[in-house]
């Protein structure tokens, strides 16, 4: 097996995640799909690190994880705040600022 197959898998996972963000309405599921995309890029970073034979890619993936953890905390509390005021977790119903 060519190790480049990891890159194809990362591309597929990223695509599935992107399609999920576009398709789903539940804010939490949309958020999970964003996490899926982040994970796919991490896989690509790790594969590139192996391709170049150094650890820089792994460090970037590590920082991606840190940022993703911070992002999850803030994003989920935003979802909770919206749910509290509007009684819904659907992305369609948060349209107060719609033009």
């Amino acid at each position: 097996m060519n190790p480049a197959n990891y890159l194809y898998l990362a591309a597929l996972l990223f695509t599935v995640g992107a399609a999920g963000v576009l398709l789903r309405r539940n804010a939490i599921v949309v958020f999970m799909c964003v996490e899926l995309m982040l994970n796919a890029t991490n896989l690509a970073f790790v594969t590139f690190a192996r391709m170049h034979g150094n650890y820089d890619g792994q460090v970037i993936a590590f920082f991606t994880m840190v940022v993703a953890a911070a992002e999850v905390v803030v994003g989920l509390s935003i979802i909770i705040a919206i749910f509290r005021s509007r009684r819904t977790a659907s992305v369609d119903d948060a349209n107060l600022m719609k033009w």
Partner: protein
Amino acid sequence: MSMSADGVAGGVVLAEQLTRTSTGEAVQFWILAAVALLGALGTVFMKKAVHSALCLASTMVCLALFYMAQGAVFLGIVQIVVYTGAVMMLFLFVLMLVGVSSVDSLKETLRGQRVAAVAVGLGFGILLVAGIANASLGSFAGYSGGTSPSGAPAPSGTEGELIAQNRNVEGLAHIIFTRYIWAFEITSALLITAALGAMVLAHRERLTPRKTQRELSEARVRENINLAPLPAPGVYARHNAVDIPALLPDGSISELSVNQTLRARGQVRDVSREPVHRVAELEESGEVWMEQRGDVPTARHEGEEGGEPTEGGAPDGEPDGAADQDPDEAGTPHGDSVAAGAGSKESRS
């Protein structure tokens, strides 16, 4: 510098370009790639958000194994601890807060958005895969000192040594705390900001002062509605689940006995017909048994329904007739005894 040059030279001598992985890794890849992809598709297409979360967790575990297979042992462990451990649990926690049974609305706010999304997704996927297929990736350097496809020299110095010795954690620590120290320090600011932001967003300011227990009880007496505590859920200890309402004297259910949240979600389980029938059957068989023993159950009936001598008298005169009557109108004679039970329960609690 001479040391690093030696290191490079040694690396080049040992250089082993990686064009094919080992068979074991290939087998692992094909199995886990299928699982990961199925998990990703499940995340998108599962109807319930909890199922989506579990599918995503399985994908993340697969990715952790991929990291380890590619030499990123530390990242593999971190992936499991941080993603499947912390992040997914946070997701499930919020799901429970928001309501597990919330399902996507099927109404399309933008017309044709779904079709367009699928088309864009497919196009994007084809674009990505074609891009990778067209890129001249060359052979992989791997961590055994090969040269990368860009022609850049293998890392030298301490980093090169650590990579050559396959010491992943030390190698990562070495470059995080030297080359990436600034990014690492910035990360701390990010984490503190995120924690503060989460607290600010999730905090709810109390608009009115909290009512004391005394004020609450006084208000209840003043309103004079449901003065006594609300009835407890469960029927005759046959069902003690919280979603099963208590029975009222007439055999109907008491909505008040079920938690407000469950009522709002429409998750009240009505089993009122079942116990009423069952109790009627029990009493019937009891009467038959008493008759067989030769006792006429006068005293018991009068004691139970002392307020209504007409009803209490009926079984005295002709017990058979009363027994025949029962199945037709499950509510009337035995419903009253049910009422006695439910009523006493309500007044007690």
